[in-house]
């Protein structure tokens, strides 16, 4: 039996080496390992052997099978190498996919992008709690008690004195309580409003707050900072305008509009025909806020601004429904592949 195996080995290896084409090699493979091949025949013959002999012979045959396999593979690649020049490959066949790329979610991506812009301008970053004291969310921010100003933001209450923060502004107060000017900070994070969801409203969304306080910060500094940010985030020279508005914690307060990126100011559906898009609220820090954090009267001035990250992301990517951000549908998320 061992002789037969040895003979088959020598013969088989020689035939493999002599095969000159892929077709010939395939014929050799079938002759050796195919259903009616010689090795297969020997394997089937195992049952006729003495039981004691079977393991040894079986092992030897299996080893030979592996050896033939390896030799066939080797010869095949040799042939392929010889052949490359002449071979007709279908070069349009799809490649083997690597790991299919995942995506970073566009909201945190836009958040990080905004932070990067402000790091470049010398801002630090901090975060505060999402479950917040009524004191930090309203009182310290100069919202008078029991005043309609509190209706500007429909609030989720969790207890008498605790709530889900309606804005990132409380982090201003927490930061100023801990640190003295000069200060330059951005505070990104999730905020909550007790309202029904529709295409432009979500009961949870993301905001980023900016704060700069020093001895003589003026409205001009705010304007320059806004212009630098808008140019960097939306690209190019984009006119902005300040419209007077009301926020209890800034005075003067403004809303900042940017010339509509779609129509260039002529008016279109995106900007409601006005030519302008509202992008943030801002203003000079109210003296009552400085008082609440214990800064001495008149010692400092500063500005603060707040932007909706969801809104900026919607403008940037032409997304028309805020709810898409929170559905986590891969058909949506995949469109942001490669975005960081």
């Amino acid at each position, binding site marked *: 039996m061992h002789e037969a195996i040895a003979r088959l080995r020598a013969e088989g290896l020689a035939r493999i080496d002599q095969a000159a084409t892929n077709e010939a090699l395939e014929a050799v493979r079938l002759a050796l390992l195919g259903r009616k091949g010689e090795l297969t025949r020997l394997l089937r013959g195992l049952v006729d052997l003495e039981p004691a002999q079977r393991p040894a012979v079986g092992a030897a045959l299996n080893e030979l099978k592996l050896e033939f396999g390896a030799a066939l593979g080797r010869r095949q690649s040799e042939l392929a190498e010889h052949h490359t020049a002449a071979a007709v490959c279908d070069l349009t066949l799809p490649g083997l996919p690597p790991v299919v*790329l995942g995506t970073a979610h566009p909201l945190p991506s836009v958040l990080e992008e905004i932070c990067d812009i402000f790091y470049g*301008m010398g801002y630090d970053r901090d975060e505060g709690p999402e479950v917040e004291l009524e004191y930090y969310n309203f009182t310290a921010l100069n919202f008078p008690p029991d*005043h309609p100003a509190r209706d500007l933001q429909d609030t989720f209450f*969790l207890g008498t004195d605790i709530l889900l923060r309606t804005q990132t502004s409380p982090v201003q107060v927490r930061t100023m309580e801990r640190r003295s000017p000069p200060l330059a900070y951005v505070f990104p994070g999730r905020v909550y409003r007790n309202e029904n969801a529709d295409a432009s409203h979500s009961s949870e969304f993301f905001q980023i707050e900016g704060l700069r306080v020093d001895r003589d910060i003026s409205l001009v500094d705010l304007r320059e900072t806004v212009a630098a940010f808008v140019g960097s985030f939306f690209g190019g020279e984009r006119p902005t*305008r300040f419209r007077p508005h009301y926020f209890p914690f800034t005075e003067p307060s403004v809303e900042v509009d940017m010339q509509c990126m779609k129509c260039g100011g002529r008016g279109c559906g995106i900007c409601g025909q006005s030519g302008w898009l509202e992008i943030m609220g801002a203003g000079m820090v109210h003296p009552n806020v400085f008082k609440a954090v214990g800064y001495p009267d008149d010692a400092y001035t500063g500005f603060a601004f707040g932007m909706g990250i969801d809104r900026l992301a919607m403008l940037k990517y032409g997304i028309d429904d805020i709810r898409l951000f*929170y559905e986590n549908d891969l058909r949506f998320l995949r469109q942001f592949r490669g975005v960081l």
Partner: protein
Amino acid sequence: MKISLQWLRELVAWEDSPADLAARLTAAGLNVEGLSEFALTWPGVKVARVLECNRHPNADKLTLCKVDDGSGKTYQIVCGAPNVRAGLHVLLATVGAELPGGVRIEAANIRGIESRGMICSGAELGLSDDEAGIMELADAPAAGTPADELFGCRDTVLDIEVTPNRPDWLSHLGVAREVAALYGTKLQPPRVLKPTPGGTLGWKVEVEDFHDCPRYIAHGADNVAVGPSPAWLQNRLRAIGQRPINNVVDITNFVLFELGQPLHAFDRDLLGGDVITVRRAGRKQTVTMLDDVSRQIVADDLIIADGDGPVALAGVMGLASSQVTAGTTRLLLESAFFCPSLIRQSSRRLGLVSESSYRFEREADWSMVRFAAHRALYLLQELAGATIIGDAIDRADPDRQVPPDLALRVHQVNRILGTDLSLEQTADVLRALGLKVQPLSSQIEAKTVNLMVQVPTFRRDLKLEVDLIEEIARLHGYDRGTRGCGSPALTCRRRQRRDEVNRLLRIWLPALGYHEIVSSSFSGRHQLAALQLTAGDLRSECLQVLNPHHGRETLLRTSLVPGFVDAARRNLHAGAQRPVRLFQLGRVFWPAGRKTAGTRHAQEHLLPEEPRLLQIGIAGGEGAGYGGIPLELLELKGLATELAALLGIPLSLRPAGREPFLADGLQWEILDSSGEICGSLGRLKPETAAALDVDANIALLELRLDRLDCTRPAIHYEQFSRFPAAKRDLSLLVPSGVTFQQVEETIRGAVGNGLAHLELFDIYTGTGLPAGTCAYGIRLKFRSQHGSLTGTIVDETIQRILRDLASALQVYPRA
């Protein structure tokens, strides 16, 4: 707030197109959100005189009328109204006319008689609700006069967003003041009637607490003829979206929208006793209000009461019992100043926001209380034929403080606005707003007060110097400043490590095929229950929203698991390619968690712990894996090792069974370098998945990022060996009960330093092995810092390994 430009023109003059006016108002802070045309017009409808009426020969209820439309011809009209009669002046819709609602008038044959037009009722023209009969025109207007001339109106209406600090803009007069300041024109105050002394009202007013109601004015009017308002007044109200009711009610509404002061008219004959009391309700009671809705008044509500009980919920709405009706002849007219927060509390509790409460909770204008009453008296006299009683009541808080004048430092104006305004420029801007300005020092320096500014009662938002500075910015322009803080750019900053770690994860995980999700902070009770958390678990206690908008129970999440499952389910249902790989970085809220210590505010302990978690998961995996461990768990386990390398921290995994929602025997604890548990890894229990409504395998890795010290130790370069490695494969028979970890540790112990690599490349559990064993194929690479390893040295090492394996674990090489 809707502003009719026709109305505004009666109060102030300006030369500009509506669009340009809107733009200037917006730039001044009255954000114009809409500009629309309002028109009441009836082409083809004109006055006609009914010459004769005869009964229709074929119908009892129809009348055959001959009418004159002023053209010299007469027409035959069939009319069904019961009140038609010869001599009436009526409105005739001629053939071709179009009525509101798109009805087109054509010549018609009605029961055999031709009719060339239609005589209109008020309802058909949209002028009143009266559809019982045709309109009978008073004062015999000439036949042929177009209806438009009598009743028509064209107007432009602005819709202005008014911020809560500017209640003065909730009126045409307030907006007119702004227009006057913007265009440099003068305000034309409306006409009023100051009653001359005489007559007796016969009523007293008692104010229980001037804190609740600092001022209450009551006037009387007799001989009132309640009826429809004149067309001009009706059209004013219609233009701003209000429905005319009758002249008395319309007049109080008109004054509210003109001057911003809410008024209330009672039918004096329906009031009991002779004393009006302004007081707290004292007890709960159910009342019917003007809108015919029953509501409950509570003890703390401020009410107006007569001798019998409440007649109005102060500042919010009157009660039906004393309302003005068609038969009313004697009025009691109320004009008051109520405590804003009281009105707000009542209005919020009842969910009832009226035009009146909306203004009172923003604070009324002290001076307007009387002026508005006089305005209403004038209109009542002119439009309702009322006789005004001279005897009036004006109860005002004798201790009321006049707000002090405000000191303004021009230096501070320039400091905040970055401007270089002079004293004169500053004063001019303030004067244009109608503020009285008294110059003091002309020295412009840090602490010098330059102007004292007297604040009129209609500007209750001006409380501090900075409020005046905003007014200056608003009128002078926000782009006029030139000076910044002068300090050079701030020093450049870079990301803190915490944010750097987020960034790394958000690059690395997508590269491995994971999609980032952002899931809701809210959760439902059943989702929390699905996790089967034990009572002592920090995550079993959660915060609950007290006032969810949709009324459904809303909890704050204590775990990211339900949010992950939601996203997984959505995508699996949508047919996403399996498996779905997702990750999220998010906070959860643990009220029972560790409290922040040493913080500034005494209530800080009320806040929950908000740990930041990283969760990575695979849903819908079907792969078999090896060693009985599903493929997706093996992937996550491999990921955990790499994650440790990415973050630069040692993490280790320990087989455990602690998480109640992860399958027993298929979960690990993740430990940090000090052996603290900082995360978990495992497969979601099928029953948990089912309870969360997903039918798929889900593997989850969760890590508490906030607990990890991710400060990466400084990297110091170490010399590496350039000598080639020697490779050896071992095939080992491992009895069950011996873990791979034991085998690995034994091998490493036997080798010492020179082991460069150890890899399990095969596990064989098939036939041909002794019972109770499996075969491991392990590849080892040895490398030395000092030179190439000789075969002898490697062979000796292998012998040592095999000896140790045999003695310690009864693991032997496979023959």
